């Protein structure tokens, strides 16, 4: 028990901070309830998915600056293809877009491995490439999303045979996120592949000498990030109903949330739960400040300050733990 607590101290700290913030929100705005939770979850969803993708790559010792641009590509592809299709056609489109995302990520990874150019430079260059691709597909926001997709993330959960009052408080956005995590990340984490991600992240040379194919593992990590980016792009299309060719502000937020969530830049440490909690904390702080009628620009200052201070605190914490 003690061991579990010390091993997950950062995540548990984040979780208690999130609960504290939720209580604060309720105190500030006594009306805050099911619908507030729902809109919070919906606003946080694309950020959370971008952060998941970033976290996987950072754990594997890389960084992907092209993540938001890949979200734009997948978002416009989905919206363009879905225009005028049936429900069944839309389901096919979703599968195709997910495959597309994984391919885009795999292209990033392959380029990094074959050119031997540092991750940050390759993905910086690919940021332009994917941005351009998104603009070629759709020059201005447009397209449409199938209504059933939209219904997937809007509102509370209702299950058959269970009274709605029991489950309605839980936003579908959160369930969507948890399902994604369970379907994509859990199998990877539990298998050899997940261990290999952590291994190449903490020491590529040691990983290579223990018989891990570092290159293909890295490509797999980037492909996983691409898959999360595709889900993020779909989430954008689902919540707005259109495709958005200009990448949103997801890149910086995802880096911030990954670091806040306890994943060290440089790789090999941390999990995916922490970054998700961090995304919700950042969104909730923003919401609280809006509720308090604080100037939205001051909110940006506070967000930056939180990020820097927490990372400083974390760095001091980590150095003390090691010595």
């Amino acid at each position, binding site marked *: 028990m003690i061991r579990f607590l010390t091993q997950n101290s950062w995540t548990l700290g984040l979780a208690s901070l999130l609960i504290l913030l939720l209580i604060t929100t309720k105190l500030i705005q006594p009306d805050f309830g099911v619908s507030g939770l729902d809109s919070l979850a919906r606003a946080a969803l694309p950020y959370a998915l971008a952060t998941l993708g970033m976290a996987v790559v950072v754990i594997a010792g890389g960084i992907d600056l092209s993540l938001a641009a890949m979200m734009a590509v997948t978002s416009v592809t989905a919206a363009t293809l879905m225009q005028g299709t049936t429900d069944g056609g839309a389901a096919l489109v979703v599968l195709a877009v997910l495959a597309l995302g994984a391919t885009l990520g795999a292209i990033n990874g392959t380029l990094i491995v074959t*050119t031997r150019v540092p991750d940050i*430079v390759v993905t910086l260059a690919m940021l*332009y*490439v994917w*941005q*351009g*691709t998104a603009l070629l*597909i759709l020059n201005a926001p447009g397209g449409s999303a199938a209504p059933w997709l939209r219904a997937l993330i809007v509102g509370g959960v209702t299950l058959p045979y269970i009274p709605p009052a029991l489950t309605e408080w839980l936003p579908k956005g959160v369930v969507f996120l948890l399902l994604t995590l369970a379907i994509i990340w859990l199998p990877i984490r539990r298998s050899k592949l997940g261990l290999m991600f952590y291994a190449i992240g903490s020491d590529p040379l040691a990983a290579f000498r223990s018989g891990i194919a570092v290159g293909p593992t890295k490509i797999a990590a980037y492909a996983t990030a691409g898959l999360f980016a595709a889900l993020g792009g779909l989430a954008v299309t689902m919540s707005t109903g259109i495709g958005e060719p200009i990448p949103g502000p997801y890149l910086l937020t995802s880096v911030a949330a990954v670091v806040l969530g306890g994943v060290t830049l440089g790789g090999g440490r941390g999990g995916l739960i922490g970054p998700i909690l961090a995304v919700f904390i950042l969104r909730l702080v923003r919401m609280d400040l809006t509720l308090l009628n604080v100037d939205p620009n001051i909110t940006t200052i506070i967000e*930056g300050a939180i990020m*820097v201070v927490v990372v400083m605190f974390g760095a001091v914490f980590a150095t003390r733990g090691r010595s």
Partner: protein
Amino acid sequence: MTAALRLMAQNPLIPLIILLFLLIGALELLQPGIVNPRWISNTLKFAIPLAMLAACQTLTMLTGGIDLSAGTVATITAFVTATLTPLIGVPLALTIGLSCALTAGLINGFGIAVARVHPLIMTLGTALIANGCLLVYQRYVIASGTKIPDFLVWLGTGRTLGLPNGLALFVPFAALILWTQQRTGFGRLLYAIGSNENATRLAGVRRGPVHFALYALSGVIAGITGLLYLGLVKTPSLSLALPLDLPSVAAAVIGGTSIFGGRGGYAGTIVGALILTVLATMLTLLQMPEGARRILFGLIILAVTALYIRLTEKG
């Protein structure tokens, strides 16, 4: 052939300059007559702010860091100077503008040197905070109007003997950076920290003060770049120098500075900035859709860096 390759590997500037001339040649082929003194002067004019901002990236990358706040700091200095000039006069406005840049640099330095935050995160955080401050500040000065000091316009857009006046600032600046990087103890410390931080520490170097000075310097350089760019663009906006942010990293990287530190230098960065500027003209000339232009831009950055790494690794 092997001798030529070895020469290129030992002098990484040579292939870069060859590439620059190849690009200019291709441009001349695309549109005969375009390469004339007027075009050269224009290209230099736009390459100068990029090369100056890329100095921030080059110096910080030598130690294995990066300064992602450079574009924001440049914008803030430019905006503050332009908005304060009608209120309190040029000298005071300049002082306040540049002290904003210095403050941002010092905050970066504090976080990286004392609290040991990763430079990427620290400068990103500073950029976020600073951008927020700029937006708040903007609401208080919106009514007072803006004025750009005359000498900045002269520096940014003027021309003497067919050459842009910006060179009057850039040539001494570049000489100073090159001298600092090669001939001073500070410059050598940057390379030393970048190649092996532990060895440098064991050799008795205290890394804190070096980082502190480096990021403060980077902030000031970004501020000066902002002022020059203000004179060039002549319309202060809240996102003035932000489009230069990522290209400045690209210029340093194309110029052969390793993002992991210890290798490269400012001479390559200057050529890198020229290559990027020529490339931008070329892509505009080709009259492709905006999307295709961005794709080509990204692919060329990637190709040049990959080629460069292959070439220098063999030597």
